[in-house]
Each structure stands twice: as structure tokens, then as C-alpha cells.
């Protein structure tokens, strides 16, 4: 079997296992959509200064939260769990190369992230009457989405090495995820409501740029007035997410371990 065939075989097994674990499906996968329904319903009728319905802004921003959950949390907890329950040890005893394992995980993350984005967009369109963006914006969506998934996945892999006990992985990984949603313009928008130093902190991490990018895709162009600096700053989005991809990859190469024990 070629590495490619082994990778897709891993991907199938990963997806099958995920779907059969109902807790993961409900609490990880559908949670962002649930939050969107709540936030959109509570604040939805209000309009922002730019005249855009709040529910529409939430829909766009919440895709950043969705990707963070499906990529970062799924990768981070998945690896910690695979290390602990013997999955990695088992695979390492077979001729399967490590890359096939990681590509398999990446396939799971990709499928989940795409499905997550579709669910959130559907909620936006069906429940909150969000219009779909013009065709040109989908190109921007593609690269922002891919960079977001790759950056979050790589950081997830790197962080999984810090998790000592897989049972705690979900709880540990969700702390940075939720904290970043509050300071990155996902739960609280516009970000200009935050103290300046907190804006600076948020701008170091990817979520702010992911959310800003997705708002560019789904909101009218003049809604950029609500963003920090008053522009969509797509160059900044590409730059920061690109840097996180490189940093994440470097961290992975340094920290990746097959086993939770000392080698």
C-alpha cells in the first residue's frame, strides 16, 4: 500500500471513529452552531452602526470559532488520546509511516472544518437571513479557511505534547480557545471596545485575523469601518496566519512524540 493509500485509510478510520463517538459530535461539532443560535437570537434584531444585522456578524465571526474547535481542539485532544490509549504505539509497530498518521488526522480535521463551516453558514442563511456573498469573495474564503485550518491544526499538534493526561486535554485546550473568542472580536464585536493592550495581545494570535477575514467574506465591504484600523487588512490576515503556520510546523517538529512516556 502506498503512503497515500495508507493516509486515506487512516482518514477513513478517523472519521468513522469520530462520527461514532456521539459525545464528540454533539459537544465539539455542534457547539459553535448552538452558540451562534443563542447569540444571534439574543442580539440578532439589533443593527450595528454600519447597518449590518448583529446575527450576520456573529455568523461570520463564529466560523473562526468553529475552525478553532474542529482543528485546534480535535488535533490537540486527538493526539493526546492516541498517545495514551496505544493508537500511536500500535501504528508505530506497523510499516505505516508517521506521515500517513498525520495526513489521516489532517483529513479528519479538514472534513470536520468544512462541515462545521457549512453548518454555521446554513444557520446564518436559514435562521438569520444572511445573504451569501458574491462569487469573488469565495476565493478569499478559500485561502483564509485553508490557512486557518492549517495554522490551528499545527498548533494543536504542538500543544498536544504538553498535555500530560488525555482526560484533561479537552478542558486544557478549551481555555485558550474560549479566552481568545472574547478578545478576538468573535463574542464581542467591534474589538475597539477592548483596552488597547488587549487588542495588541489578541492581534498576536490567529483568531482575531481569522474572524476578520471571515467578516470580510460575509459582510458588506463598508462594514470594515468596524474593524481595528478601519480596513479589512487582508494582507495582515495572510501574514499573521502564514507566520503561525510556520511557527506551528516548527513547534511540531520539535515537540512531536510517539509516546507519552520518556523515550
Amino acid at each position, binding site marked *: 500500500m502506498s503512503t497515500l493509500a495508507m493516509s486515506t485509510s487512516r482518514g477513513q478510520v478517523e472519521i468513522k471513529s469520530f462520527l461514532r463517538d456521539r459525545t464528540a459530535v454533539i459537544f465539539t461539532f455542534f457547539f459553535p452552531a448552538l452558540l451562534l443560535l443563542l447569540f444571534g437570537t439574543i442580539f440578532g434584531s439589533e443593527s450595528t452602526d454600519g447597518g449590518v444585522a448583529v446575527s450576520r456578524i456573529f455568523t461570520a465571526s463564529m466560523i473562526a470559532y468553529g475552525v478553532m474547535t474542529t482543528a485546534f481542539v480535535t488535533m490537540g485532544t486527538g493526539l493526546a488520546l492516541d498517545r495514551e*490509549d496505544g493508537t500511536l504505539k*500500535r501504528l508505530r509497530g*506497523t*510499516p*505505516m509511516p508517521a506521515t500517513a498518521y498525520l495526513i489521516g488526522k489532517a483529513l479528519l480535521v479538514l472534513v470536520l472544518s468544512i462541515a462545521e463551516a457549512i453548518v454555521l453558514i446554513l444557520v446564518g442563511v436559514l435562521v438569520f437571513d444572511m445573504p451569501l456573498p458574491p462569487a469573488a469573495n469565495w476565493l478569499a474564503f478559500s485561502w483564509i479557511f485553508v490557512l486557518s485550518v492549517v495554522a490551528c491544526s499545527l498548533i494543536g499538534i504542538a500543544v498536544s505534547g504538553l498535555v500530560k493526561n488525555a482526560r484533561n486535554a479537552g478542558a486544557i485546550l478549551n481555555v485558550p480557545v474560549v479566552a481568545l473568542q472574547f478578545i478576538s472580536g468573535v463574542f464581542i464585536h467591534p474589538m475597539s471596545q477592548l483596552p488597547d493592550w488587549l487588542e495588541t495581545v489578541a492581534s498576536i494570535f490567529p483568531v482575531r485575523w481569522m474572524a476578520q477575514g471571515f467578516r470580510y467574506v460575509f459582510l458588506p465591504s463598508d462594514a470594515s469601518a468596524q474593524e481595528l484600523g478601519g480596513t479589512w487588512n487582508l494582507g495582515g490576515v495572510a501574514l499573521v496566519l502564514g507566520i503561525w503556520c510556520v511557527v506551528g510546523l516548527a513547534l511540531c517538529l520539535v515537540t512531536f512524540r510517539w509516546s507519552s512516556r520518556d523515550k
Partner: protein
Amino acid sequence: MEAIEVTGLRKTYNGRDAVAGIDLVVARGEIFSLLGPNGAGKTTTVEILEGHRRRTAGDVRVLGEDPGKAGSAWRSRIGIVLQDADDAADLTVHETVRHIAGFYPSPRKPDEVIELVGLTAKRNDKIRTLSGGQRRRVDVALGIVGSPELLFLDEPTTGFDPEARRQFWELIRTLAGDGTTIVLTTHYLDEAEALADRLAVVADGRIVAEGTPATLGGRAASEARVSWTEDGLVRSEQVADPSDLIRHLVTSGADLTTLTITRPTLEDTYLDLIGATR
């Protein structure tokens, strides 16, 4: 060529020797058993042979290659039965065996392997729902599905009921009959005695004895204990060759209905061996 050749193997953790200089040769087609108390270094040794752990010093050849450097071609020739895995809980037995089989160049048929380990009735059950012993049999299936030349079994029958254990022994004999070399670590001395062609006892990171089950630790040469009843008292004597004593007892007219002649069991020998190092 030998299946395994080890000289001067050492593994140090935080300045403490977990393996303190082991020499070992396992011939092709042999069932070799490694015995020893918990913490003696047998799992560490086996994990080094499997390529799961790095060694601190020593020379190791497994199927002619250094397991620390060997690649996927080498991995396709060995099989590993894990001791405490808990993976693939949401997959069925057949899905898991078929999935792992796909990584090997010439695997056994998944259904044949499932039959061999006696899980045909559980073929489509999720692994999560299996009992502990059935779960271990899945591990055995995954270890042999790649048709390995060399199979590592680390305490494989923990949690098996006696019948499952006998069936498992038969399976190991079948595999050995087909020419598979088998390295078995176990706590059960009857298991080692029933299966192993040769065994070694590890204590405190060293091999303290090596031999066949019949000769380990000078077992064959050790004295026999003869005991009988004389004038209502139990008498016993230890002798190298009991013939003269028996002849004497027969002619002296002693009561021989309670006569026993015993040599140390493998367990006695083993306990002596590991006790000697404490």
C-alpha cells in the same frame, strides 16, 4: 542467521540502569520466553528489540537490522502484541483487523486471523463492547495479521480464562510450527513451561539464568526430594540419584503408599533465581 542477537544491552533512566548489560541470542523458529518480576527490565528490553525505545549502549540485531534505525520494510517482518492498548474502541473487530492488515505487503486474510483468535462471533462488534480477554485477543490478531517472521508477545494472556489460555497456547504452537520466531514475556510460569523452547530469567536488569524449561537454573541436576512414611512419621531425604535409596526402602519393608519423589518446579527454581539477586 539468528533472529535476535544482543550484546551488552544497557538502558539508563536518570542514572539508574533499567537494563544493566544483557546478552541474548534467539534462533530462528524458536519460542523464547523472558521471565522476571515487574520492574526487572523485561518490558524495556523487549521494547528496545521492537524499536519502540532507544538504548543507552550495546549492540542489537533483530532480523539482521538495528531496530533503532530500521525502516518500514523491517517493521513489515515483525509483529507486536501490545500489553495495555485501549485503542480503536469505536471500530469493530473486523474493521480494525482489516485496517491494520492494509499496512503490510503480504498480510493474512482478516477473517482468517479473526477465526484463529476465536473472535468470529464478535466480528462485527465494536471493540468497546468486548471483555478484557477478548480485547487482548484482538491485540493478538493485530500482531499476527501482517504474517510476521518474528512475533513479540508481552504478557499476552493476562485476563484470559483457562480455556482461552489453552486455545491461545495452541495458536502460538501453530504459528511456531509455521516457522514464526516468538519472543514471549510472561508472569505465568506454566505458560513459559508449556510453550518455550528456551527461556531466560531477568532480574535487576540482568539475565540471571538461561536454559530450557527442563534445565533452567540447574533444575535437572538439582537433588530429588524423596519422602515416605516410616513408623507413622514422615521422613524425607534429598539425594542426587534416588535409585539406591528407593532400593533400600523396598528391601527394608517401609510403607511406600505415600512415597513421593519431587524435583523443584519451574516456579521453585524461578523464585530461587530472582530471590538470589535481592
